[in-house]
């Protein structure tokens, strides 16, 4: 896949970092403001997709990136599941129990385990959307070869 012109590359370099940061902002404030793991994850995946579209990438690199993002996806969902199961081990021993200290309402570190769920769901969503995108490109490249 070929890259685009210098103007697009430079603009993307400037923007992609900000998009990435915005995604992280949405994820970590998931328990306070609208949005959360899913919305933020999509934004983060968007920043990667922007870079790939602007700079292009050769076929082998794409395959490597795809296997990496698949690994992240699987690990993130296992961590979410582990957090859910950890409720079975502590407190009143219920699946999905929010057993962390709750903190003060409105602060960034509060709401027990919800921020953790948001972070890992964010990683999961970002990785899986990136995987879908890469799989589609790889499929297209394979056809054209």
């Amino acid at each position, binding site marked *: 896949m070929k890259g685009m012109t210098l103007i697009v590359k430079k603009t993307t370099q400037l923007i992609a970092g900000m998009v990435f940061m915005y995604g992280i902002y949405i994820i970590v404030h998931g328990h306070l403001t609208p949005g959360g793991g899913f919305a933020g994850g999509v934004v983060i995946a968007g920043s990667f997709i922007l870079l790939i579209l602007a700079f292009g990438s050769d076929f082998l690199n794409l395959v490597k990136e795809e296997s990496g993002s698949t690994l992240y996806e699987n*690990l993130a969902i*296992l961590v979410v*599941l582990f957090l859910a*199961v950890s409720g079975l081990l502590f*407190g009143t021993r*219920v*699946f999905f129990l*929010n057993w962390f200290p709750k903190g003060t309402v409105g602060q960034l570190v509060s709401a027990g385990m919800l921020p953790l769920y948001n972070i890992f769901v964010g990683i999961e969503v970002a990785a899986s959307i990136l995987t879908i995108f890469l799989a589609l490109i790889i499929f297209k490249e394979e056809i054209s070869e």
Partner: protein
Amino acid sequence: MNPLIPLFVVIPLAGAFLIMILGRFIGELNKYFASLILLVLVILSIYSLATTGENLSLYKVGGWEPVNKIPIGIYMVMDGFTVIVLCIINVIGFLSAFYSISYIKRYTAENYFYALFCLMVAGMNGVVLSGDLFNIFVFLEISVISSYALVAFGVEKNELEASFKYQVLGGLASFLILYGIGFIYWKTKTLNIADIKEVFNAGYDKSYYLFVQILMLSGFGLKAAIIPFHAWLPDAHSSAPSPISAMLSGVLIKAVGIYVIIRLFFNMFAVSEGMSVLITTLGTLSMVIGVFLAIGQWDIKRLLAYHSISQMGYVVMSVGIGMILVSRGARPEIASLAIAGGIFHLINHAAFKGLLFLNAGAIEYTIGTRDLKEMGGLAKSMPATSATSFIASMSISGIPPFNGFFSKLIIIIAAIMAKFYLLALLAVIVSIVTLASFLKFQRYAFFNKTDNKNENHIKEVPFPMVFSMVVLSILCVLLSLLAFPEIREAVLTPAIDILMDPGKYSSQITGI
């Protein structure tokens, strides 16, 4: 709270993703991992079957207690009917996964296969255990989407076409179901099945209620492939790899289709005569039309797929007769007999249809074709496949002493006692036509002499495949024990009680 309940979802879900990660490191051993996971689930489900009995156990996910007796969290419910379906899912799932160890070598990407398989089982366990309408939808999508991918696993032209058809109709079904759930939520402001029942009991708009019922019936009817909604089933079930066909036909259409229909129309909606007559009619239609579509088929897996429609028709018809009697409020002992026949046939169908698809897979594995006309004389070279498929064929056609005979007998007796003579007659005729079409299968596949050139190097299939088929054929014989009163009391009666008594399910959940 019973701590086993969430494990039915957690174990296969974690297993699916562990397979994807471990697959990079342990290679060959990976294929035993899925069977191991499902073996654990089999043990758990049989333990639950033995301990549940009449009790209804409830699991409040996240420990959210009800407020003013209104449930606010996600509830998981395990009762007599649930454990029966859980046992079916996990036993057939384990045997199919074990069978796949040899069978799936022909395909690439084994890791993806086992991961999707575990996801499908997790979704079905979730549907069955969920006590909440929206979670039924979520888990249904998990299991159905992984089954779309599994149907297309061969990525040939036929498989992709079948999978596409399945996706379009499955998507339509999901849309109808979600639409129905939306309508229910709009009126009742709750998603918990028991709570919805209580709210509707307080009074409702008749035409609105009927509209929601029709939406739900057509949505889940599409998933269960009852006759006007059956178009996707023969393609999808015949194109999938054989262990997956066994899962789809033996388990999936029951867990996400029939089970939910029975659960919703007995325990959530008030049983009404109009709806129950409609359900009985649809059941009878699928029973009769399915078998006549089946008899002309020459592709074995297509033939078996059409028989699935027909046999599910027996289940729906029998449960429908039970519903009619419950709605009239007369003669509860016959109603319970009809429902018992339906559930008994549901269990039996999982055993023999799973086995028949595994047999078809074994034949395809050795001689590489599904066309009956190109087979013949396999009885000598493949004794285990031949013997087990004979048991399964006799069992599906209702020949004593196999399990299919007893369940069909109960269904027919119940129909006669309820004075539905026409339905009883049709059930007998369909059974005879089924016998005819399976004699054709036996004759052309195993006994007919052909000019088969490579007859000499046809061998019996490897051990894992033989093992699964033999276990299922033993089950086909043993399940007929369910007809005896003592065993029936222990296994089937709790399930029937929870369905028969309209208020029992909801009052137990909201009362706890």
